[in-house]
């Protein structure tokens, strides 16, 4: 039996500290390196957005934060340190009752508002009750009062909704119910996976406004994963870009959107049309994401990168400090990118339109 190692300390303003996290999926073709050496801090009350294409590892990483990964996934290294009220714990070492305790009461997850996030044969009240009981809240009257409060907070009528079955609710209502349910045990962290995908525009808007209101009211920290950059622009304080399983850029929201320094972040931002303002110079990223079983040598983005030089093919760069202390990018060409993008506060596609 290995000796239990002491849990390292976490900066006081952080609520979660992910360090060098790596996750593989075992497959017949060999290990899929879904997450590689991911590190980041989540501060108390902060909203962090994780963006990237499908296959970038963002969902695998997020699900692992509450250890809900499928059995074929294995954390091969790293720590997920949660700074609770009394002590700091390493989530990767939790099991049994401690893990249950951590999930939901410390860290809750809201999945896409699909029907399969619910048990289809029990009504919403019973879903609330189930969740509460599973986490030791046994007084029915207490659960009733709390779920009523939460549903009102998400602008739903408890008398109507609690009696309803999941299929009787619209997509937007289901998403609200899931958000309310995630807050049942007052978690310090809420993780949201594509919270507005598949919802209509007006419903998306109401969910975004709701999340903003709840965050101000309750003060929890939020991590959300989305391929929708506009959601990050709306809600995030900081943004992390993931590519091929690893973090390629971390920055404050305005730095990410107006002054990205990694060519992949630039590529993503340039691929999204807007409704208001100038369209700018839009284009897609060429090529496809790499095979995570057989990653390219050197920088994993080099086969698709318009700024590639020979040195990019030699070794994968570290996260290099750029511009401000809060901003880093895994790119040896970041200065070149900075010259092209500049420092002004305008969308990337607009800036590139001026240049060409």
């Amino acid at each position, binding site marked *: 039996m290995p000796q239990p190692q002491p849990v390292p300390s976490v900066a006081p303003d952080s609520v979660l500290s992910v360090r060098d996290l790596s996750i593989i999926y075992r497959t017949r073709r060999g290990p899929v390196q879904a997450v590689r050496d991911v590190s980041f801090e989540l501060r108390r009350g902060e909203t962090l957005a994780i963006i990237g*294409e499908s296959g970038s590892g963002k969902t695998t990483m997020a699900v692992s934060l509450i250890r809900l990964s499928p059995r074929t996934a294995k954390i091969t290294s790293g720590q997920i340190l949660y700074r609770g009220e009394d002590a700091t714990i390493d989530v990767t070492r939790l099991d049994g009752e401690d893990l249950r305790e951590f999930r939901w009461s410390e860290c809750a997850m809201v999945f896409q508002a699909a029907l399969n996030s619910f048990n289809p044969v029990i009504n919403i009240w019973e879903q609330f009750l189930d969740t509460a009981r599973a986490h030791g809240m046994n007084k029915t009257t207490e659960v009733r009062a709390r779920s009523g409060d939460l549903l009102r907070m998400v602008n739903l009528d408890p008398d109507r909704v609690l009696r309803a079955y999941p299929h009787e609710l619209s997509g937007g209502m289901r998403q609200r119910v899931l958000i309310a349910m995630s807050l049942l045990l007052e978690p310090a962290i809420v993780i949201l996976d594509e919270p507005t995908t598949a919802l209509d*525009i007006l419903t998306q808007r109401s969910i975004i406004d709701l999340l903003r209101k709840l965050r101000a009211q309750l003060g929890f920290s939020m991590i959300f994963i989305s391929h*929708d950059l*506009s959601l990050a622009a709306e809600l995030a304080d900081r943004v992390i870009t993931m590519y091929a399983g690893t973090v390629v850029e971390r920055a404050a929201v305005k730095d990410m959107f107006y002054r990205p320094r990694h060519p992949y972040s630039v590529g993503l931002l340039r691929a999204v049309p807007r409704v208001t303002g100038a*369209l700018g110079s839009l284009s897609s990223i060429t090529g496809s994401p790499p095979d995570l079983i057989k990653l390219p040598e050197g920088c994993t983005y080099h086969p698709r990168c318009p700024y590639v030089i020979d040195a990019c093919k030699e070794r994968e760069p570290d996260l290099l400090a750029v511009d401000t202390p809060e901003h880093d990018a895994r790119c040896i060409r970041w200065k070149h990118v900075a010259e092209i993008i500049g420092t002004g506060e305008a*969308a990337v596609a607009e800036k590139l339109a001026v240049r060409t």
Partner: protein
Amino acid sequence: MNVTRAFKTPGGVIKAVDGVSLALGQSEAICLVGESGCGKTTTGRMLAGLLRPTSGQLLFESKDVWTTKGKELARFRRSVQLVHQDPYASLNPIRTVYQTLSAPLFRHKKVSDRRGAIGAVTELLQRVGLTPPADFLIKYPHQLSGGQRQRVSIARALSVDPRVIVADEAVSMVDVSIRISLLNLLLALRDEFRVTIVLITHDLAVARYFARRGRIGVMYLGRVVELGTSELVVGDPAHPYSAALVAAIPEADPTLTRSKERVELRSAEVPSLLRLPSGCTFHPRCPLFEEGLCDVRVPELLGIPDGREVACHVAVRERAPAAELIGVR
């Protein structure tokens, strides 16, 4: 066309599309946008001749498609092609790209032997950017990415020299990073083959990009509520519903998106298609609602001075777009 389509359900009859009139020009890029349940897909399926209108007509070269037969009907079928949303479901998984693309060529007697077919398929693949074509001929759908599959679907639609391609949410399921290239491909094909492309999408930003030199039709509960150039519909919406959509949409620009003016709707609830509100179906939610008018009379789609059409009593009377009347301009 001028069509209505109702569906019978256990709960009653649903009018999914109610009196939609649309005339498509040659080599036009037009988008139908709207939220789920607005009837945009049903309209697309009627355009493609896959659904028979309950009332109204679908005219192709001035002939009612649903009364034509034989050769003429076959010609319509060839002339209007559909590209589906889900490239994972719309390609036969046990057929190679060559098999998928050569089948319509043989069927419509565009080629007669294998050699001719390989040549034609190679050319199609090149046209949709799947190069080198030889690498793709023998691939099965599962060996392709979502974007590549959608290119195969587009190639299949192109294989029979269509006049109109109806693309229903054709870019919604592919990654954000490659949507623009698919839209560009469709636009390039429109220019090259003078084909009209109807893109159906829920994404207003995609619609704006795609139809930047074309038209956008905004649909709400089975009706077209605004139809006009992309620049006007998105830049200065005339219908209060379009104005609400433009104001609500989050944008990938933090300063802009956090300071956008909102349109406050009177209700967040979308009425059921089984119990549509009287008069203008948007009236229970509309910020410009006028009692005795909007809840009584159904607004027609009428032209306003700037050249577009809008189905709103107030905007037409005031001769001003709703965006201006609400104050979100």
